């Protein structure tokens, strides 16, 4: 409930911000032809690219089921965690804290990323260890510090619960009969250990394991169909870019945001990684963050190995089609310490920032790029991420520009559990 209220407040705040931007008398900067070409690379944001690995990706019935699962805390070890516990709709589907809080109050090791524009990703997680949104969603469900559930528990629950079962069968066809507890234990998952769950999984026949994996991945395919609808677009910046060079554009974003845009595509070099209409190249970079405690995180290096070993990657049995890039994934030395470039659409509402969540505000992120203070001595991309020495007013400008990337509010009905999964 409080989440709903919060979402409404956030929505109201966004519209106030937009109208303020629209009324402020602004002059258009003169952009050069090459600046205009680059600015146009960032807008508009089209529909998400197709997902060949999920043939239910565009199915509205799958999306409604997925939306209902997204908000359903029964799919966790203690009925205490749903996806929306950490990906809070009113906070841009992030959680406003440095770490996520999973089942039993445990903290996640990395910061909770926004799910805005998730469907535009090529890789999922900060380290890209999943190559589809549906295979991504299998992981939090079984992660002991997130949902802490397991695929047998999940399949049983879905098959017991009449409205979920009905919604499932409308999209995916009949659910297998899981009632024989000797064949389908209450709890089981192929965890790489000797836990009771792992032993229970090994006791199952390959065919029964397969049947359960099919149900499990169908459910997460439904979740990913819902995620495709969580799109942040039509920002003030897009209205500016659509008319750039004309007088209408001048009123779309304040002059300060225009100066910030110029820095973003110019001296700041931000657009090298935060490229294209989603302001992300979807790939991995080492920005040389100051150490924020904990073990060294190898980022993409470890993510690559996990992706290649994942039976749910898009080359696996449960995928409806391989994603072409998967074939060419291989551990590359310079990927150690690299993390996925996050989208910047909606970024003003999704703090704290970075995979560590170590920066509370956009200003802190910008100061990091500006001063490069406390960066580790050895790091990958020192050649391109240089100290930028922004002045205070330049920092204001960049911040104003990032603010202008807040999209049109999402329809209210996407921000809560649907009345029914069907």
């Amino acid at each position, binding site marked *: 409930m409080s989440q709903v209220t919060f979402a409404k407040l956030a929505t109201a705040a966004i519209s106030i911000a937009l109208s303020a931007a629209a009324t402020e008398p602004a002059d258009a900067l003169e952009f050069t032809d*090459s600046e205009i*070409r*680059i600015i146009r690379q960032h807008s508009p944001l089209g529909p998400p690219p197709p997902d060949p690995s999920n043939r239910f990706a565009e199915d509205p019935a799958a999306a409604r089921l997925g939306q209902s699962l997204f908000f359903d805390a029964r799919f966790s070890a203690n009925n205490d965690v749903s996806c929306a516990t950490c990906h809070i709709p009113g906070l841009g589907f992030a959680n406003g804290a440095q770490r996520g809080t999973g089942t039993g109050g445990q903290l996640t090791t990395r910061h909770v990323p926004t799910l805005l524009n998730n469907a535009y990703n090529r890789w999922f997680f900060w380290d890209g260890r999943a190559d589809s949104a549906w295979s991504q969603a299998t992981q939090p469900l079984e992660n002991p510090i997130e949902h802490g559930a397991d695929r047998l528990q999940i399949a049983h629950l879905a098959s017991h619960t009449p409205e979920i079962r009905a919604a499932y069968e409308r999209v995916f066809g009949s659910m297998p009969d899981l009632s024989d507890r000797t064949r389908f234990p209450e709890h089981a998952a192929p965890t790489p250990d000797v836990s009771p769950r792992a032993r229970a999984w090994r006791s199952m026949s390959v065919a029964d394991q397969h049947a359960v994996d099919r149900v499990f991945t169908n459910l997460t395919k439904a979740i990913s169909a819902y995620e495709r609808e969580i799109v942040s677009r039509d920002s003030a910046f897009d209205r500016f870019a659509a008319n750039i060079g004309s007088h209408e554009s001048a009123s779309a974003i304040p002059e300060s945001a225009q100066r910030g845009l110029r820095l973003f595509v110019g001296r700041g070099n931000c*657009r*090298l*990684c935060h*490229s*294209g209409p989603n302001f992300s*190249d*979807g*790939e*991995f*970079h080492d920005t040389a963050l100051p150490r924020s405690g904990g073990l060294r995180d190898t980022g*993409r290096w470890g993510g690559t190995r996990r992706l290649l070993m994942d039976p749910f990657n898009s080359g696996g049995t449960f995928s409806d089609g391989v994603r*072409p*890039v998967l*074939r*060419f*994934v*291989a551990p*590359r030395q*310079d*990927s150690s310490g690299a993390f996925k470039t996050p989208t910047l659409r909606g970024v003003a509402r999704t703090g704290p920032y970075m995979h560590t969540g170590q920066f509370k505000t956009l200003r802190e992120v910008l100061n990091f790029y500006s001063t490069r203070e406390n960066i580790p001595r050895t790091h*990958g*991309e*020192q*050649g*391109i991420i240089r100290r930028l020495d922004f002045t205070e007013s330049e920092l204001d400008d960049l911040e104003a520009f990032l603010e202008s990337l807040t999209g049109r509010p999402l329809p209210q009905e996407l921000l809560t559990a649907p009345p029914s999964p069907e």
Partner: protein
Amino acid sequence: MVLETVAKSRGFHGIGAAMVVGMLLSLVGCDPSAEPTSTELAVPVSPSPSPRSTNPSTNPSTNPSANPSLANYSEPLWAAEFESPTGVWRLRYRPIPDPIVRNELFEIDAELVSSDPNIRITAVDARMPEHLHGMTLRPELHDLGDGRYRIEGMLFHMAGFWELFFWVEHGASCIEQKAAEPQRVRFAVVLE
């Protein structure tokens, strides 16, 4: 730029070029001291037109009718080619699609022309020297025979200056023995 590349590709098919290669072969023979070779051959004969035009209609290599003299030209248009210092082999390539689209998978057609079958392309990769990193993927090299190669899994995920490398190995050949180590041919590509 493009016109110059075309001219070279055509001339290369001609008798003149074949004769030059033939002469060099006989000159170099098996004498390892015959010709110094560097391990990095940094200068392409003709660099990729760079920065590439982002508007396909102004790029003759994707729109031959834009230039009448190219309209009937049916050979593939190479982006660039490189001739080994001894002239024993030549390497040329074209990206597919051409021009390369930033952050989208592309392929490369490459041709290594030499009368010595032991001279082969053994690897392809790319780097951004200013960024101190390369591609995020590992491309696959397919030897199609007759000196033709297809490279898949190329991805230039960022705008900027890229170096595209081909490693050329001389196998068991006695030609250019000094270069028993693979030579690295570098082409420059700039994306906006």
